[in-house]
């Protein structure tokens, strides 16, 4: 007998169905007998019973399936056969898991001889805890179901109760994303704190030399400025120089000039473009744009021209961001009331004057918010820069030279064989934290601007 959570879940779901039918029938019966009108329709009574039957038992099941393995292991370790185990480490873990696999029937025989005596204690323990778990779960289900069942009266407000419970589920669902974000921040924070014990935050934020791989003779240096500069150069300068004008012009064309048929085609295509995996853009940047730019630079006689250049990564990233900017600008321009446009046209302004002098200024706050969101996306973008911008931390304003970004360095620091306690690896988390904070701030500011702008026209 093992503890099979999926089967048990089905079991209580079946019980809940019975509870639903019983609750519905009982409420109808009671109402008929008393000759009273039901406050809630019978199926709400059914749902009330079913939820009381299902929810506590399912919750218990979830908790029990995460707790019971530890309980089983504890009991096994307390047994006599476990006393001969190696005291710590890898071998002990391997023996235990070997024994467990056999005990749970996932494996026919032990692979490690030392595991053999542990199979029986394991089987006993999991048997015992499985029964305890099932018994407790069924008891909970029945208790919950009976509690709800006995509360059914014609005047009982089952509908309000059920609606409250449903609302609670919805609340829990919406908390999942928030709690996950919170967890991510915490994990970043803890690793970063470990890093900052080794390297001061001031060095990371203001140091100008980035050389985490210099090896034993010289100490590693973790000056983040070259990375931040590379990130800003690619994501906030070059990409935006490409994306803002093209995105804006796209939006103006689509909202003001395009025939409905054109708009019907172009807008979805742009949206598809936004869904292209960034790695595909990365190929394009690395294989097509970067070599072309290098040849161009060499032709012009620009020094330090490299096949990995800030310009290639920035331009392709800008192209990637265009749909994003144009769709935000599109929304903002569309949000400007038609009355504003009519007001300008009625004064004898041309469509062009109306767009330049009324629509765009009126849409500007929304557009700015969109641009900030786009910047925050660009600086968090990874694949394109890894493939096209290079990994050498240069502080240069020459867009044809190779630069690196925060995200590219994080990838470099965390790929390959790494120990998770060296400053070099931990630096990735600290960089991640910096990136997270910056993009978070950008998003907060951007969303605030967009929100205020929406309020202005409602």
């Amino acid at each position: 007998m093992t503890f099979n959570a999926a089967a048990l879940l089905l079991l209580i779901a079946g019980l809940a169905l019975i509870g639903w039918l019983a609750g519905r029938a009982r409420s109808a019966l009671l109402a008929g007998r008393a000759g009273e009108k039901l406050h809630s329709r019978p199926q709400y009574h059914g749902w009330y019973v079913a939820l009381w039957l299902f929810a506590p038992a399912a919750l218990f099941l979830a908790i029990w399936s995460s707790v019971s393995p530890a309980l089983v292991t504890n009991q096994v370790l307390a047994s006599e056969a476990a006393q001969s185990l190696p005291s710590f480490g890898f071998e002990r873990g391997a023996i235990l898991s070997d024994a467990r696999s056999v005990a749970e029937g996932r494996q026919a025989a032990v692979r490690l001889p030392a595991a053999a005596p542990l199979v029986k204690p394991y089987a006993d323990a999991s048997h015992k805890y499985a029964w305890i778990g099932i018994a407790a779960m069924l008891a909970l289900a029945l208790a919950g179901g009976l509690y709800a069942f006995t509360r059914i009266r014609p005047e009982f407000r089952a509908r309000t109760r059920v609606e409250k419970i449903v609302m609670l589920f919805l609340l829990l669902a919406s908390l999942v994303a928030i709690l996950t974000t919170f967890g991510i921040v915490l994990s970043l924070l803890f690793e970063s704190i470990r890093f900052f014990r080794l390297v001061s935050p001031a060095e990371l934020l203001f140091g100008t030399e980035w050389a985490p791989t210099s090896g034993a003779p010289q100490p590693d240096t973790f000056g983040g400025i070259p990375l931040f500069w590379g990130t800003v150069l690619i994501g906030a300068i070059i990409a935006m120089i490409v994306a803002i004008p093209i995105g804006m012009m796209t939006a103006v064309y689509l909202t003001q000039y395009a025939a409905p048929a054109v708009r019907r085609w172009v807008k979805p295509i742009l949206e598809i473009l936004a869904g292209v995996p960034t790695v595909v853009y990365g190929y394009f940047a690395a294989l097509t744009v970067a070599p072309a730019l290098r040849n161009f630079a060499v032709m012009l006689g620009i020094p330090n021209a490299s096949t990995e250049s800030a310009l290639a990564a920035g331009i392709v990233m800008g192209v990637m961001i265009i749909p994003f900017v144009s769709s935000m600008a599109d929304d903002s321009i569309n949000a400007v009331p038609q009355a504003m446009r009519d007001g300008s046209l009625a004064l004898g302004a041309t469509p062009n004057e109306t767009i330049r002098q009324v629509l765009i200024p009126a849409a500007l706050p929304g557009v700015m918010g969109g641009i900030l969101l786009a910047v925050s996306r660009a600086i968090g973008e990874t694949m394109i820069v890894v493939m096209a911008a290079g990994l050498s931390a240069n502080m240069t304003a020459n867009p044809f030279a190779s630069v690196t970004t925060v995200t590219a360095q994080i990838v470099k620091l965390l790929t390959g064989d790494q120990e998770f306690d060296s400053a070099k690896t931990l630096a990735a988390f600290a960089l991640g934290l910096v990136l997270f904070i910056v993009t978070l701030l950008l998003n907060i500011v951007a969303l605030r601007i967009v929100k205020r702008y929406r309020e202005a026209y409602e």
Partner: protein
Amino acid sequence: MTQEDLTISDPKMKAHSVNVFYGEKQAINDVSIDVGTDLVTAFIGPSGCGKSTFLRSLNRMNDTVASARVTGQIELDGEDIYAPSMDVVQLRARVGMVFQKPNPFPKSIYDNVGYGPRIHGLAPNKADLDVIVERALVRAGLWDEVKDRLAESGTALSGGQQQRLCIARAIAVDPEVILMDEPCSALDPIATAKIEELIHELRGKYAIVIVTHNMQQAARVSQRTAFFHLGTLVEYGKTTDIFTNPRQERTKDYITGRYG
């Protein structure tokens, strides 16, 4: 409708057999009307009767609606405004419009009024523009209220002030006709009274056409009234005649509140 009702000695605009379609739907059916130069003309009628649609065809604002189509003839000073040679930008500079809901631009009060003169090149320099802006605001009866805060946003004014700002904005380009599309429907009674007073003062300087569903307002501000119903012009004549002695049964029913 008899012929003398349509006769106005000095018409500013003449509409003849005008039909307006939105796609398949006909919104205006064979409307002929003359707009007097020194008169305030009111268009009244129940909601959806086509009075606003007809008003918007007088300065070709219906052009902005893709499905709209206008047939028939509308003349401004004898010139067909739907002729290919007519420049719609110039037409709208000559036939200004004030909308139902105040729609100031999100710019300063000064720039709101200065917008039209600037785009039409009416003010070669700042001093000229100052004069135009002041004169327009004075005419719109707003100058005393805003002269100390011309740099503030036009959207920060009260609803009635915003509407007078929009009138000033229209006046600033020195139009010949001002079309008003229910200009008081979003305003409180005091602001409404101010706008009506303003219309009185503007009469004679501009030909004014006002759409309203407030019959008392039409009676107060206009000299000519046109009653629209279901896309047709039912009756057109002197305001006093329309309200005291309507010739058509439908007009009578409407002004006595039988429907509307």
